[in-house]
């Protein structure tokens, strides 16, 4: 072996090792932590115990939690356990390889881990009736955006850790809720319109709260679960002796990366509503006198007098909170009395911030009803069945193909099979590393790749055989075989890649999963056949004594 061979070998072994490390969290042993309700009955506990038989899983019982260790623990199992009676929550503990390295557990799609997929659309007809005119394309789009803002505001009510909310086209909204516990309440939360109100902020008590927090609250983030928020509020109200006329609410800000809104601080607000959402008639994004972004709005005639009252001189310097669904989203300071019913909220906002705020104000003025136009709910046990069926099909398909290759190409088949396994490892590694989601059709893509991946080997081997038949030496045949097959494999695969790429643009979810696995599978198989297999053959043919090749 020459020096370049050593480098190549090191490189190949290096990426194989890296790929194996990447897939450990997916296929290796994992732990699930099950938090129990304090009032869980022995019967309920036994149901959980029997779900994890001791011949397959190890179970450690603590006072109010179980920790299960074993193979095949995935998001589907986690979601299944979550809805067991007596279980408060369940989560998969991070795998050691995830902590130490870049490895990630592969994401399972909703069809595999269980969950709810909804497509919603604003009820345009209802709005058109109210406005007595037809909505234009851009107005429909704006209404959809308003609904989107509303849903983001409500994300915590869905009770799932990783909800996904995004627009689909101009008029629809797609929501994905993995492992949702109570689909009914989700649909109820979605079906209601947003309640917007404007209330005065009490600065004294708001300050007291923040002082209390600094002294007594040492966690980095404020609680997100409604139950815990409630508890915190009760505690603070008691300790700072909050008057009955006031109430505590969180001020929410939008997180830049995830688009989620998270609590940033606590405000003390008048319980009395100064201005109702429907006292405003219109809101839009504009500029202020310094040409910074600002929200403009006009009130209804009714609202104008209320607004003049709130903005009277005694309230100057105070803040008025814009509250939607009990969340404060903005708290501009009142500077001047406004009697005209026309006002501007100014500040150093980004365009995104003002757009979001104007949509919230609009929601108060003209609430959007959402209709569910598509729903797909998959129970976690169904997902678990699909995973098992998929793994079975992969294993059987894989062994069928491998046996055939071994039978037909002997040693060559053995090398191809080795490549096939490496290929599977690479695919899984890439999928989890790049954060793609594995869906049921994705598993189908995997199986299809098993069949198609050996194609490159077949093309190469047939070429080598041909060269050998033409009387060339083993070494030359191998080199020629690989060289000639290269462009064939390249062209054939590029076109399949084009098809897979276009397919990945089709719709969402399942099909995308299929296309992505197919795409990655083709890439990996090309690399394995043209680089790794070739290297193995180069090593074999370095031995000049070889007169016959077993393919």
């Amino acid at each position: 072996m020459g020096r370049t061979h050593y480098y190549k070998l090191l490189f190949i072994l290096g990426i194989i090792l890296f790929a194996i490390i990447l897939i450990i969290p997916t296929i290796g042993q994992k732990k699930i932590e099950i938090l129990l309700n304090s009032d869980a009955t022995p019967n309920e506990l036994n149901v959980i115990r029997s779900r994890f038989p001791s011949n397959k899983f190890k179970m450690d019982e603590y006072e109010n939690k179980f920790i299960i260790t074993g193979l095949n623990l995935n998001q589907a199992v986690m979601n299944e356990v979550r809805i067991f009676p007596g279980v408060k929550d369940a989560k998969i503990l991070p795998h050691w390889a995830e902590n130490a390295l870049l490895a990630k557990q592969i994401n399972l799609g909703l069809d595999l881990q269980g969950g709810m997929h909804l497509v919603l659309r604003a009820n345009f007809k209802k709005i058109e009736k109210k406005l007595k005119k037809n909505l234009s394309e851009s107005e429909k789009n704006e209404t959809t955006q308003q609904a989107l803002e509303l849903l983001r505001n409500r994300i915590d009510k869905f009770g799932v850790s990783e909800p996904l909310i995004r627009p689909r086209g101009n008029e629809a909204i797609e929501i994905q809720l993995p492992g949702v516990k109570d689909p009914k309440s989700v649909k109820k939360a979605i079906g209601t319109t947003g309640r917007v109100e404007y209330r005065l902020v009490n600065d004294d008590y708001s300050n007291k709260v923040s002082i209390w927090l600094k002294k007594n609250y040492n966690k980095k983030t404020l609680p997100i679960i409604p139950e815990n928020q409630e508890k915190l509020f009760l505690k603070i109200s008691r300790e700072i002796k909050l008057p009955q006329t006031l109430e505590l609410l969180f001020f929410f800000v939008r997180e830049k990366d995830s688009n989620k809104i998270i609590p940033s601080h606590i405000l003390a607000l008048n319980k009395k509503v100064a201005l109702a959402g429907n006292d405003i008639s219109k809101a839009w994004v504009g500029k202020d006198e310094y040409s910074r972004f600002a929200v403009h709005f006009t009130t209804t005639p009714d609202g104008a007098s209320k607004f003049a009252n709130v903005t009277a001189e005694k309230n100057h310097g105070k803040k008025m909170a814009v509250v939607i669904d009990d969340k404060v989203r903005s708290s501009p300071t009142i500077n001047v009395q406004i009697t005209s019913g026309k006002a501007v909220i100014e500040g150093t906002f980004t365009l995104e911030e003002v757009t979001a705020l104007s949509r919230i104000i609009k929601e108060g003025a003209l609430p959007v009803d959402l209709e569910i136009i598509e729903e797909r709910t998959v129970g976690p046990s169904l997902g678990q069945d699909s995973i098992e069926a998929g793994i079975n099909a992969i294993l059987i398909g894989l062994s069928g193909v491998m046996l055939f290759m071994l039978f037909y190409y002997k040693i060559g088949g053995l090398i191809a099979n080795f490549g096939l396994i490496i290929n599977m490892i690479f695919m899984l590694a890439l999928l989890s590393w790049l954060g793609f989601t594995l869906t049921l059709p994705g598993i189908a893509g995997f199986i299809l790749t098993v069949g198609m991946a050996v194609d490159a080997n077949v093309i190469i081997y047939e070429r080598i055989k041909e060269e050998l038949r033409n009387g060339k030496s083993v070494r030359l045949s191998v080199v020629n075989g690989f060289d000639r097959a290269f462009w064939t494999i390249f062209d054939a695969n590029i076109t399949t890649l084009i098809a897979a790429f276009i397919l990945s643009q089709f719709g969402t979810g399942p099909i995308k999963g299929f296309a992505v696995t197919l795409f990655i599978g083709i890439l990996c198989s090309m690399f394995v056949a043209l680089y790794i297999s070739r290297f193995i053959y180069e090593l074999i043919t370095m031995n000049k004594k070889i007169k016959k090749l077993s393919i």
Partner: protein
Amino acid sequence: MERTIGFLKYRSIAIGISIAMFIFFTVFTFLNNGFNLGIDFVGGVKIIAKFEKDVDILKIRNVLIDNKTQALVQQIGKEEQNEFIIATKLSNKSKSAEENSIQLKKICLTNFKNVKILGVETVGPAIGEFLKKSAIKLFFITLILITVYLSFRFEFKYSIGAIAAIIHDIAITIVFCGVMNVEVSIPVIAALLTIFGYSVNDTIVIFDRIRENVQIKSKQTFIEVINKSISQSITRTLLTSLTTLFAVLALYLLGGDVINDFALVLLFGIFVGTYSSIYIASPTILFWEKFSSK
């Protein structure tokens, strides 16, 4: 030297068979009430539920009829699992998909004890339109991209050949769905687009050989060159189809009900794709060559 088989001798017969098969399938489909469009396209409800042991398909069917629904029942998985799909399509516009879904769930839960609803799909009629449009759009985009790529890497006549094969495969597979009463759902569309990729892949390996053999100066006519090229690559064509068939067969038999249709369509598509790369793609470039040299 290896043997050259005169594949193209039979090209007229092959094309005749293809056309006959297409016509036969199409007629059969339309005599059989046309295509079975799934709820992804026409809107509707699909509920997967697990019933108690003593409940069988007849019982459920009777209850559904008694409640004046037009829902269909189908058992899935192993018999002892007692799992059924109850589905209804949006035929009358008076009720929304959502209302249908609520009604069906209610019927199951009130008439049977211990029903576990494992999954629900409710699709409104608007979605189907959207899907149809995007499926057709993507089909043409892929077609154009592949034509461009092949014209760039090969010659224009080769892309004509490949596209003839693609259209042949897709058309026959679509009517095959009609004959087998396969429910056309999103996964089935994905299978069709996959056949698309597979078909081109298969075709190109042969084209690559033709291109190579054309460059070797010899006295052979174009038809002889094509025959020679197909003969040289026939082992590969068959082997790859075989391994892919193995894999898809495993999927068909073991993959579960959800991807059963998907796998069936793919199985058929692999057959057609293999056949068309020999008998549709290559004769087309031959035809084109004759046609353009006139």
